[in-house]
């Protein structure tokens, strides 16, 4: 009978077929799907920790996020009851003009692992769609992703559009992307910024805490 350690190891080995096989045999053996999902989460968390310690690299994160997505789909049909209460709600998207989604997808997987409910708007998302999504979902946090250096301007436009719609104090904004650093953040004025998906998730947890203390 496979154990939790196996799944974590399979994740850490980025072994796609072993992970899927372990999940399948646990499902077949009638193990509670919530428990299996929890073990996959721990595996993905362990991968994220290695990434943060610079022991894992982006390609490892991309593979791990892919495996996590696959096992989530594998387990989903077995869920009957409602999932446990989300830690917070995040609306996320790659800003207008930019179609890169690798960073966003890694960040989304890690947020889900930490128990966030994520509404993914996709790529090339115009400011008006961010505004509409904030109105529709009342997220605790809005995440904006980009890779291009030209996206700095589009991120600023999006943050400004949220402010103009009178929603800036209704939500926290985190921006993320491989080309973001302090000067860009000072220009765009989010609540948090990062160029590292794993750190970004920690920042979201922190943003939730600071919100609770208000």
């Amino acid at each position, binding site marked *: 009978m496979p154990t939790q350690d196996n799944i974590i190891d399979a994740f850490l080995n980025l072994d796609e077929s072993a992970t899927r096989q372990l999940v399948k045999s646990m499902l077949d053996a009638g193990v509670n799907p919530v428990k299996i999902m929890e073990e996959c989460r721990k595996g993905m968390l362990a991968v994220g920790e290695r990434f943060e310690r610079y022991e894992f*690299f982006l390609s*490892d994160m991309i593979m791990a996020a892919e495996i996590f997505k696959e096992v989530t789909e594998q387990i989903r049909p077995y869920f009957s009851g409602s999932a446990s209460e989300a830690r917070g709600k995040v609306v996320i998207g790659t800003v207008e*003009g930019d179609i890169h989604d*690798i960073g966003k997808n890694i960040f989304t997987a890690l947020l889900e692992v930490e128990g966030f409910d994520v509404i993914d708007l996709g790529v090339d998302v115009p400011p008006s769609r961010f505004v509409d999504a904030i109105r529709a979902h009342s997220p605790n946090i809005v995440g904006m992703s980009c890779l291009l*250096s*030209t996206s700095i*301007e589009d991120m600023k436009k999006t943050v400004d559009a949220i402010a103009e719609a009178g929603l800036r104090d209704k939500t926290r904004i985190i921006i993320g992307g491989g080309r973001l650093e302090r*000067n860009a953040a000072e220009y765009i004025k989010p609540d948090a910024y990062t160029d590292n998906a794993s750190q970004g998730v920690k920042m979201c947890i922190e943003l939730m805490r600071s919100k609770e203390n208000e």
Partner: protein
Amino acid sequence: MSEDFEELYKQRKDRISRAVQLKEPDRVPLIESYGYFAARYAGITSYEFLYDYDKAQEAVVKTAIDFGYDTGGAMYSLGALPLTLAFIGEYDGLAPSFVNGPIHDILGVRYARFPGRELPIDSPFQFIGEEYMKADEYDQFIDDPKRFIAEKLLPRSLRSLEKPCSAKAMSALYRWGIEYRRSVDASLMLRQKLRDYGFAGFTEGMSYAPLDFIGDFMRDLKNVLLDCYRQPDKVKQAAEAMKGIIIEMARISARSSPPGTIQFIPLHLNEYFSPKQYKEFYWPTLKEVINELIRLGIIPEIFYEGQHNAHLETILELPKGKTISRFEKTDLSKAKRLIGEHSCIVGGPPASLFLTTPAKVDSYVKDLFDEVKQGGGFILSPAVPIPPSSKPENVKALMDAVKKYGVY
């Protein structure tokens, strides 16, 4: 050309070439990365910048003169290597490896979106990776890579060539040839104008990392990374097959390149790989391409995109003083310590510095030069094009700071 400009040209050329040879020039060279800023500064749209050769030339020349960096700039376009590689060996020369506005329209390039077409008039063009080769097609590609590129990749990635041998496809190729001539003439004219104003050139022509070709133009970046886990042997064989064509391209290009020509190699997958994967999947074929270029008398300027800290040591495997290493997010002082006596370093401020203030630009340059200037072999240049909305006073401040702190 007036004598003053001729003198200026020689000074700038010598400044750059001494830095490339790992010597101390009179001061640190400053190489432009104006990108769409030139369009915005000259008051034209991105659409005009990519479609109207006359207006684009004027914008580049104006920007070059007003800011006075050591190089002037060039016509702006997107790489389009599949076209070049598909026709290798079929005729004497090399088919063009770029896509500008008119060529985008003629060929119907699916992997690019252009302003005034698929995008608003003032947007930069976008490169869109797509999966033009399926995961189970590696064997076909490995078996005959040129044929795969010509017969599968081109029809899948270019709307006008969807049906090979159709009238539409053939007339597109004919029009492409004519437009290519026009655009090359415009580029040559621009180069001459800039030279007449005393600006030095820098890179001419390009090469590619074999695995990047597969990531950028065939499998898409994410898929090729997943393939490294799912079918590692196929990925390695495909990189080997690709290497053969890229080396062929290098040999043809060398026939018309005087010794010392600098060719640009932009890397994309480098920052995604762990050191182990980098050395297993990516570096071996790239290293062979670089060594071949060096044998052909070309100086490769390798752009180690993003964060390259983890792979810096591999640069020491290349011949000393024969390459230029361009960095983006890599720690430049670390690079200087590790490879500074081995390869000329090009690097500079992040894009967002140009949105701040002249004082910040000044202190950035001062601090950076404290770390990397000593002993020569360093060229300042923003690694990626500066933002279109850069403040002109900051673009100017960069040149001022180089004059202030960059003299040896």
